């Protein structure tokens, strides 16, 4: 055998030896973080566990945008900032690369979908209205006038919210405001005619700075508040149905696996959830609530 043929054979052998390891790695998945918060890390850990066959690269969103790297098979964003930045990076990341978003609000996800032609799906944090209304029926039966305060972002769901309340056999008292300056006015309008205040995530209305006064105003009107997170319940809301980062991460991993398999499922609401109750607030309203029992009842209601 001539030296030239030997050399060609050697190169082929080396290439063949390297191929199994490349196949074993699986598709590359970028996971872009908005920050270094514990919730994001928890969600990413759950995602990693579910995507064991993929090559998962976890970095702050900036590194993916600023450094040119081989195109991934999928991008997973954690939080709103990472979603917006990577969704808009068509110049550095080909627009055909699909994106799965998690730990974002329904509003942010809808806005991102409208802003780009990139294949986009994800799991939003907001709990479905039906689930929240079901929790209200279970926990505070008889309180059927539901107050809702909507701002510029959440106002687009006014009709959907009204329909959901009415279809649940309850009465709506919805106040629409344009900004934080009108919160007190909006609260007066809806609390005077409500038995419960249901909160819809909207950064303009419900923030750390406004929450205290909203909770105080509701308490002075003897109206309990249905929050949307465990932290809201700790701050003074009566109860909330919420999903943990781990639950969201698991669900997002399922979506990612489907996208890697060549399908693009639609945006999903959280499937797994928990219930949190502030026992002190419940006692102040003369209620005795068990969060585990409420969560089980809610899960049973979901099942057909």
């Amino acid at each position, binding site marked *: 055998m001539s030296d030239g043929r030997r050399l060609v054979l050697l190169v082929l052998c080396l290439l063949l030896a390297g191929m199994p390891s490349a196949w074993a790695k699986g598709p590359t998945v970028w996971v872009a973080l908005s*920050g270094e918060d514990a919730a994001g890390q928890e969600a990413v850990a759950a995602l990693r566990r579910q995507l064991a066959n993929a090559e998962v690269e976890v970095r702050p969103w900036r590194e993916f945008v600023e450094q040119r790297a081989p195109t991934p098979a999928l991008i997973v964003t954690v939080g709103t900032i990472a979603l917006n930045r990577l969704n808009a990076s068509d110049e550095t990341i080909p627009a055909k690369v699909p994106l799965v978003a998690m730990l974002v609000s329904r509003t942010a996800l809808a806005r991102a979908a409208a802003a780009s032609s990139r294949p986009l799906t994800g799991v939003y944090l907001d709990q479905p209205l039906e689930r929240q209304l079901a929790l209200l029926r279970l926990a505070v039966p008889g309180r059927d006038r539901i107050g809702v305060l909507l701002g510029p972002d959440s106002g687009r769901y006014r009709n959907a919210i009204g329909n959901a309340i009415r279809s649940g056999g309850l009465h709506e008292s919805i106040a629409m405001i344009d900004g934080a300056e009108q919160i007190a006015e909006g609260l007066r309008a809806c609390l005077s005619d409500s038995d419960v205040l249901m909160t819809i*995530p909207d950064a303009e209305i419900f923030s750390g700075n406004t929450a205290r006064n909203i909770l105080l*105003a509701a308490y002075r009107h003897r109206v309990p508040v249905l929050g949307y997170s465990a932290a809201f319940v700790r701050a003074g809301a009566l109860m909330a149905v919420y999903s943990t980062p781990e639950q969201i991460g698991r669900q997002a991993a399922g979506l990612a696996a489907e996208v890697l398999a060549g399908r693009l499922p639609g945006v999903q609401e959280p499937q797994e959830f928990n219930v949190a109750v502030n026992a002190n607030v419940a006692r102040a309203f003369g209620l005795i609530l068990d969060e585990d029992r409420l969560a089980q009842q809610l899960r049973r209601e979901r099942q057909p």
Partner: protein
Amino acid sequence: MIRDKFRRRMLLAAVLPTMIFTALLSLVWINWIHQELETARQTRAEAIARQLATAAEFHLFSGNLAALQTLLKATSMEERDIVGMAIFDRRGVRLVAAGEVVGLANPAAHAVWVGADHDGRHRLVLPIRTVSLVIDDLAADGAAPDDAGTDHLLGYVVLVVSDASLIEKRNTVLYLAGLLMLLAMVAGGLLAAFMSQGIVNSISGMISVVRRIGQGDLAARIDPDPECVLYPLEEGINRMAEKVSLSQEDLKRRIDEATSELQAQKRTAEHEARADPLTRLLGFFRHFHHPSHISGPFGGRLGCRARRAGGAGGGKFARGIQALRHRFF
């Protein structure tokens, strides 16, 4: 007279240091009290402003001006120092006020004291903030969980604090300090007079006795008090006076004796001088019974010669005279 002078000096020595120290202590005390009063007033005003800000937070959020006005009235009625107060919104528009007219000249991010104006008025400007709560720990809106921990400005509380009450309290303290100083001086003087009474009497007595002794009254003595600390001195002065008296008597007695002897010798000499020449001669020789008794110009010279002739010639002369004396007497 001496006693009064001495007593005055003793009193001065006792009262002057007391007065100086009391005055110094009073100055330090008044200064300290004034600072404490001012600090207490500031702390109280800040506490009231914070309490007002906390109470006004919800009313400010809800725009309930009637509740804010009620709050201000209730606070202004409680405090004498606070002569005016007002609540402003975040843009600096005055919403409610009570008491003196208050303006918001320099809104600040933290509590600020504005110095006294010509009326002795201080202004405290305190921002009203909402205390943030964490209501979403999933960071749905970005990297950080909400804006927890940051404050949100709602408006300002402004208090006008008067100096009148502080000045009144300071004056009261001044009067009190003056009164205390006076009392301390009087008490110190009385105490000094009482405690020094024994010593003053004793020293005055000693001065008087020494003066009398100096004037010749050697019989003057001090009446010693064994309880007095100056008892040894009194005893010493008495002993000294005793010795002086004794020495004086001894000297007098000796002088009297010498005078008597001289007079006796004089009488003898005159008696002998009135006798016959032989007797006069005998008297003369009797005078030479001892060479030291030779007197008069002749005798002196004779005596001198006899002493100079203690050697050869003189001895003969003296022995001749002695022989004459033995022969005739």
